[in-house]
């Protein structure tokens, strides 16, 4: 069966989803979905090892050879992102059972796990596939389930946020579809590897340029890159905590993966950067994203919204790495994708821990919560330090690589901007820390002893992994380098 791992990666959760909807009993569904997610993680792990040792894997679905049939193509980058997504899914599902029982009405829980598995399927499918149109299909699977999952938030604003996401997401997906159409019109193929070989010959065509533009804008919409980011903060802030954790850690990362694929694999870096001079657009956008989102984050009263804005800023770092148009920049970008996913995931998990005892996540409701719940409070501090990029956390490693990539190109002003935004991060993280530790807790909070359950240990597992990758960065750095090499 091992030679089928590539397809099982995606098909396993896809088969599990309808089964889960048939089981339709909260506890059993949870157990089932969690088991499946760990299996998926195991598959992605073995795929990762296989790709690291034996090079990229190609799998012809239906036995039809590539440009005619659909193929799965898992290279070092895809394996890396698959690992990330499946790990986050397994962790989220295992950790969040209690929160889901609290936040989701009982009769919807079975469907909730089904939708979660479908979302996972979609995200994995986007990464694994080697066919341009297949990307669109799986993009829609993940998006549709994400819309529903987000809309399950208790606040009614979850609904409007989800609707805005739906509109923006559909426009984005349709733009990507137009891009696929234009490319197909000029090349006659949908296979990514085939596209890659055919595009250089026709790169002078206007429609290829337009295809590039549509791809880029469509992915920017999904990625929530400034100024197309309005849907994201609401979506992350009002979604159920399990959903915001999972999506914050994976959804934008997969969109970023698509961006790499389009820029480097489909069109090739030469076309993207030398012919179209993409970095002249991407650089200012990234900088604006970094600065404006960080500034926005400072003024948020709701901590989840603050983290959402901070995510926007972090996306800016990742695109900045691309915009540098150098190997070092690309490695930094991929590494930051990985590190940030875990840091942000851990932070959202700590917030979910707080929710067990605080009425909401507004700053005033969190007064003294760190003292009342020291392990959770400390977890937030550690995660926050990672976000700022303090040494010994994995956030530092990726920022170090990013800044060295910037210095390599001699952009000293950019270094100043990165430093400035790190300080902004310090401000918004520290505002929360002050509320958590240096204000008096309300009597209700001190008296509330509701148990947190498995969520807390899992939060610490994720946090410790970010600390470990901050101390011994060999694994992610080597993986990021291999991934960047696969893109060249």
């Amino acid at each position, binding site marked *: 069966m091992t030679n*089928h791992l590539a397809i099982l990666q995606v*098909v396993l959760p896809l088969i599990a989803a*309808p089964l889960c*909807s048939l089981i*339709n009993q909260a506890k059993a569904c949870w157990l089932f979905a969690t088991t499946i997610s760990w299996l998926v993680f195991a598959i992605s792990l073995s795929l990762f090892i296989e790709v690291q040792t034996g090079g990229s894997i190609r799998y*012809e*679905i*239906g*036995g039809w050879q590539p440009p005619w049939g659909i193929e799965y193509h898992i290279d070092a980058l895809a394996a890396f992102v698959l690992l990330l997504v499946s790990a986050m899914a397994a962790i989220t599902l295992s950790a969040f059972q209690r929160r889901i029982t609290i936040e989701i009405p009982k009769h919807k829980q079975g469907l909730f796990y089904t939708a979660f598995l479908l979302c996972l399927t979609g995200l994995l499918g986007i990464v694994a596939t080697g066919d341009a149109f297949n990307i669109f299909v799986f993009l829609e699977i993940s998006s549709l389930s994400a819309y529903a999952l987000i809309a399950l938030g208790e606040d009614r604003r979850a609904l409007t946020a989800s609707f805005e996401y739906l509109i923006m997401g559909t426009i984005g997906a349709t733009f990507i579809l137009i891009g696929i159409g234009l490319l197909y019109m000029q090349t006659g193929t949908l296979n990514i590897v085939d596209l890659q070989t055919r595009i250089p010959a026709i790169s002078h065509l206007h429609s290829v340029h337009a295809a590039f533009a549509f791809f880029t804008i469509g992915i920017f919409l999904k990625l929530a890159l400034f100024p197309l980011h309005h849907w994201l903060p609401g979506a992350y802030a009002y979604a159920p905590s399990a959903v915001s954790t999972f999506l914050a850690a994976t959804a934008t990362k997969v969109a970023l993966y698509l961006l790499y694929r389009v820029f480097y694999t489909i069109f090739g870096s030469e076309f993207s950067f030398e012919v179209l001079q993409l970095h002249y657009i991407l650089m200012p956008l990234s900088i604006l994203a970094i600065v404006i989102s960080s500034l926005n984050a400072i003024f948020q009263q709701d901590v989840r919204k603050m983290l959402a804005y901070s995510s926007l800023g972090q996306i800016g770092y990742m695109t900045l790495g691309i915009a540098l148009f150098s190997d070092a920049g690309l490695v930094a970008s991929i590494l930051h994708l990985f590190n940030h996913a875990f840091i942000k995931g851990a932070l959202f998990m700590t917030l979910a821990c707080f929710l067990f005892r605080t009425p909401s996540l507004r700053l005033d409701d969190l007064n003294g919560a760190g003292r009342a719940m020291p392990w959770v409070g400390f977890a937030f501090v550690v995660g926050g330090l990672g976000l700022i990029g303090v040494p010994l956390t994995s956030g530092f490693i990726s920022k170090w690589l990013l800044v060295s990539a910037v210095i390599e190109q001699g952009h000293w002003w950019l270094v100043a901007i990165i430093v400035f935004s790190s300080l902004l991060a310090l401000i918004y993280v520290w505002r929360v820390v002050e509320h958590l530790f240096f204000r008096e807790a309300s009597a209700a909070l001190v008296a509330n002893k509701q148990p947190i359950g498995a969520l807390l240990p899992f939060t610490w597992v994720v946090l410790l992994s970010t600390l470990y990758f901050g101390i011994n960065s060999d694994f992610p750095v080597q993986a990021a380098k291999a991934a960047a090499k696969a893109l060249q």
Partner: protein
Amino acid sequence: MKNNPVIKQTSFLLIPVILLFGLYVQFHGDYSPGGGFQAGVIFASGLILYALIEGQAKAEQVFSMRLARILSASGLLLYAGIGVASMFLGANFLDYNVLADDPLQGQHWGIFWVELGVGLTVTSVMLSIFYAFTNFK
């Protein structure tokens, strides 16, 4: 719709035709336009027409929400199951050639079952979405 015998009678004449036509589209999709998806939608439309005429409650007696959910899941499972079956028979996922001794026959079988899965899922999904909306008030 006791008060509207014309509509009721016409519809009751039409519904079997629609369902039959749905089956035709489902199984004749290899030779003429159509296939599982179109058939599913047509089949669902027939049932929706029934729900429009006789009301939600009666329609659910014919085709309950629960049945719709089970069928939708089994349709998807059927499709994926064909893929897994070909995997167990030693070929790649969704490779129908190995489903029968003769590759062409295998392709026929594969497409037949796969289309059936599509049809099942689409019918029940469309219907349960319709139910969900009309029940919502």
